[in-house]
């Protein structure tokens, strides 16, 4: 049963690795967050402590919302700086 959350999280990881723009990476991180929340809910159901699983899933979903806001902020800032949200341009920022 936990394989559902594993598959969703793994596909999110593949998205993060394979995408070339910041918005694409945000999609991948969102998928990973969904997989993590799903894992908490399912493990709570499996172990018989469903309420704890729900609480941790709420924390993960709220953290995912915060991560989305930060991602959009970075995308807007990157667009101000480079007129492009591709990840290749970020390499030159390392000095």
């Amino acid at each position, binding site marked *: *049963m936990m394989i559902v959350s594993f598959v969703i999280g*793994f596909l999110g990881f593949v998205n993060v690795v*394979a995408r070339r*723009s910041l918005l694409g990476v945000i999609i991948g991180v969102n*998928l990973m967050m969904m997989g993590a929340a799903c894992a908490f809910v399912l493990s709570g159901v499996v172990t018989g402590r469903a309420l704890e699983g729900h609480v941790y899933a709420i924390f993960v*979903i709220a953290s995912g919302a915060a991560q989305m806001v*930060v991602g959009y902020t970075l995308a807007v800032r990157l667009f*101000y700086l480079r007129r492009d949200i591709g990840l290749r341009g970020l390499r030159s920022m390392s000095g």
Partner: protein
Amino acid sequence: MVLFWISSALAIAAAVAATLFVELKRAVLALWVCALCLGGMYLSLNAEYLAIVQWLVATLGVCAFVFFSVLLGSREGRESWAKPVVGLLVTGLLAALIGWVSMAHLPSIEWDRAGEGVAGLGRVLVSDYLLPIEILALTLFLVVVGAGVITRPERRGLNDEESP
């Protein structure tokens, strides 16, 4: 039980679609469908509040994503090596999943349907997890304020023009 497995299968299919679509708008639409299916899964697990939170956050996030993809451009590509590797990984994953499902019968899930539900969850949140909830609220507030500060346009040009 049937709703759980149907939602799971649809969520995985939507996640695969979100991975394979090149255009960002289609990918985020698939992400939204995946979130809706996960909400259906939570509903089947007697977690109504969590399902509603998942649906709301996903819908608002997707609306914001469409706005930003229009604003910043939705051109998207992958690394040259990524397309065959992603295709291979997804195909292998699906083959393993289909093999696992066909070889083993789907496990049944036992949970306490007579639990306290949303009332119990609210009671736990305001008693045992009050401090983490407060920290989470503060974190969200700081994130919003920080986002406003970071995206504020720079005023160096204005100061330069004002100086004699």
